[in-house]
């Protein structure tokens, strides 16, 4: 297996263009599992850890642009105040070792419906910045991920980062049941992002991709913050999910758990905004 280690962004994009069959790797917390279990055998690895541009984040008009190589540990420590939902989700990822190594770009690259960074990004309406030697483009996250572990990244493209809108007084929440890496435990997660006149949501682990519960969003954006509305919101979120029965658990349970997570998180978000 060839090992490519470009020293900068330009070189990384050139390497990617020259080796479309090379598998990008940052923290390796997904890639190494795949390699160790012999699920993939790429011709080459494209190590991005030496690309300084990728591990930066900066404020931009209306939000924050986070480089693909920013780890969960840093998201928690450095962006917890601006993006509390993302920080909450990051705290639930794996163990300290995984959080030190795993990155937001890797989570996007894997495009797993169970990726924990994804629901807060969907709920905030983030867009993924991808680039190639041909140039860069920003794609709304729900157009970037198109199926279980499938995204629209071109074969010469890399993920540069993600742009996350930051709205005044936004209240964000994230909750999940079960642990991702436990086969017998049904998992689902939910993120909500509430600001003036806008409610963003996202369901994790209960369908082929993370899912925004649009009807629930529209309902909550105009509902009065009361228990009954929270309950109704929960039902609408559950209805938007498309879980399946598998050895991890039944669809009925996941739908129920989602309604509970949605009801609780919207309640907390409303409370934060009222406080």
């Amino acid at each position, binding site marked *: 297996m060839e090992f490519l280690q470009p020293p900068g962004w330009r070189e990384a994009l050139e390497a990617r263009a020259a080796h479309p069959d090379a598998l990008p790797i940052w923290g390796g917390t997904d890639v190494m*599992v795949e390699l160790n*279990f*012999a699920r993939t055998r790429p011709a080459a690895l494209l190590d991005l850890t030496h690309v300084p541009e990728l591990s930066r984040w900066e404020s931009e008009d209306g939000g924050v642009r986070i480089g693909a190589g920013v780890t969960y540990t840093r998201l928690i420590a450095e962006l917890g105040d601006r993006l509390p939902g993302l920080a909450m989700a990051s705290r639930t990822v794996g*163990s300290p070792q995984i959080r030190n190594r795993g990155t937001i770009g890797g989570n996007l690259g894997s495009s797993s419906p169970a990726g924990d960074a994804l629901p807060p990004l969907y709920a905030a309406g983030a867009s993924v910045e991808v680039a190639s030697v041909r140039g860069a483009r920003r794609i709304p996250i729900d157009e970037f991920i198109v199926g279980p572990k499938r995204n629209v990244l071109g074969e010469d493209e890399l993920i540069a980062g993600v742009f996350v809108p930051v709205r005044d007084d936004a209240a964000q929440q994230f909750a999940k*049941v*079960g*642990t991702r*890496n*436990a*086969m*017998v*435990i*049904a998992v689902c997660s939910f993120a909500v992002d509430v600001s003036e006149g806008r409610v963003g949501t996202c369901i994790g682990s209960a369908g082929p991709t993370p899912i925004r519960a649009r009807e629930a969003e529209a309902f909550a954006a105009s509902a009065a913050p009361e228990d009954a509305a929270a309950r109704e919101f929960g039902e609408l979120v559950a209805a938007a999910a498309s879980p399946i029965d598998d*050895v991890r*658990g*039944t669809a009925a*349970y996941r739908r*129920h*758990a989602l309604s*509970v*997570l949605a009801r609780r998180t919207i309640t907390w978000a409303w409370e934060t905004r009222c406080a």
Partner: protein
Amino acid sequence: MKVAGQSVPRVDGPAKVTGRARYALDLTVPGMTHGAVARSDRAHARILSVDTGEAEAVNGVLEVITGASLAPLDLRFGHVVRDHPALAVDRVLYHGEPVALVVAETRRAAERAARLVSVDYEDLPAVMDADEALGEGAPVLHPERIERTKDEGLDQGGEALVGNLCAAADFGWGDVDAALAAADLVLEGEYRYPMLYGYAMEPYNAIASFEEGSLVVYSTAQHPYMVREDLARIFALPLARVRVVVPYVGGGYGSKSYTKVEPLAALGAYVTGRPVRVALSVEESILTTRSDGARVRARSAFAADGTLLARDFDVVMDSGAYTDNSPVVCAKLANRCFGPYRIGAVRVRVRSAFTNTVPASSLRGFGAPQGNLAGELQMDDAADRLGIDALALRLKNVVRPGEEILPGKRGIDADLPADLDLLTTSLGWPNAPEGRGIGFGISASDAGAHPTSVAMVRLHADGSASAAVGATELGQGSRTVLSQILAEQLGLPMEKVAIVAADTGVTPYERTTGASRTTALVGRSLMAACADAKRRVAELAGEGAEFADAIKAFFGAGGEIIGVGAVRRHGEFRKMPPFWEIGCSGVVAAVDAETGRVRVEQLSTVGDVGFAINPALVHGQDLGAATMGLGAALSEQLVYDGQTLANPNVVDYRVPRCSDIPERLDQILAQRQDGIGPYGAKGAGEGTLNPVGAAVAAAVGRIVGRYPRELPLTPERVWRLAQTEDARV
């Protein structure tokens, strides 16, 4: 006592924390080659042919060995029934079974070649469920039954072994049916305990070589002397010419009891004439051994005043494809399921079934947790229904010190009412904090296994002493405790003693390092060896002489004095078991009733160890064992999805992590010096695990209003339980 009873630092601590301690996996021997295993991708199939051509062509490959290529060697091992071939010969009985061993100059070449071994199979009907396996018309895994080995320590009762019945135990006393008919309350329920993987940090590995007519094996075996017997038989060697050496072992928990990869490494060495290492990954280790899952039907009969009148247990164990240690687990499950209670009538029937799954063998607790779940939950349920406090109900029925729970066996060498009292005080029973549930339970395990242990003590000319013992160091601290006993007996400081252990070519015989026996039994053989050595000193130089002086006087220059000691099933060790290992644990738990998530907030354990020779080590064992119990209670379970495991790796099979450990830990020691071991010690290491499953289930049951009957308590199961309308058990 100077050294015994102190939490002296581990003798292997510095080497382990600095990474210098050597495990089998750290060793290399000159000329060593590497073996990799090709495994079956069928659950049950006839092997029509194995094509090794492509594998042999890989650069660096020395040999591709198949079961058929080794005839007339008989590849089967097994200490109870020799039915487990190191490599499948004509049939595979489970997905993951070894079918070929590739030996190559590098591990990478061996692994690459192993993937290229191609097997032509004819599929046979498979049976994946234990109850189905025992039913009419199920495909039979072992149509030709092999006789049991003759070994007094492994004697079995029970029904004739036909069909897929791997082992059975069946006994009882009193008139159970009459008691059930006359009782004021009869509880009946079916409980399920999951099949588990005994996760240890170091996966199975071994290096084997033939040197000057002897087979030398370095391995991770817990019981090197048992492995020695299997190897001697396969290669027709005398025991004297098989040397099994076990350096530090990275965790055993029973999962490394008995033979695993040693025959594979030895076969590789036999065929190639080179030393061969076989080192499995964790994923392959999961395909090597697991624990027996169990379906337990239990009935308990009570009088209105709470008297436990009768118990009736019918258990089916899922024991997988080969016999391994399941017959012993079966016998122990039978002995342990009804609990340490005074019961007028008992009927127990346990059947262990072959299925086309990974073979099951020992695991910490050894049958006890499977039965305890049902037994203890019925105590809790009965207490509710009779309007009696669950502690009072147990105190009413639990046996008193010295009382028998199995006719003819050793009476209970513990004070269970006192233990229960310590435990429930710690838990604050019956006053659970707001929204919380308390659960607790008790168990008694006939521990110690067959009491055969031999030790040797050497007194050196400079006044120091060493001992040779066969016990392995699995992380449990055996070398430290045995050092303490040696130092205590000879009146030496810790710095002047050393233990040499677990090398069948050098150290004396030790039956097993299992059944929580080392401190009690090896400790006693070591004491006997010390006494023997001291007797020789007195003979040579008179009573009270310093041994260094005696050596000098006798030899003039150099020399040493050797003492030997043994424990055997004789005298005070005649009655079985050598000691009872008590389990007495409880939890305080919270449940998120809406999502079903369980959080254990407090864990309390009572280590009724008689005497803690090293209290810190007992704490470590008590916490470690109870934590494994929490794993089974909350998240661990090997799940079959059709004919393959759905979670054969430790990413999907979830063992507890630091963040799962309860915030409050209360570890209590009960030291009444009532054991057979040194200074009144008994064993530790398994007991605290055994009641944990039932305790967590009881705590959850008290919160949601209904007792669970199946572990692990995943959020979905707990949520369903909270939804169920039907009445309690």
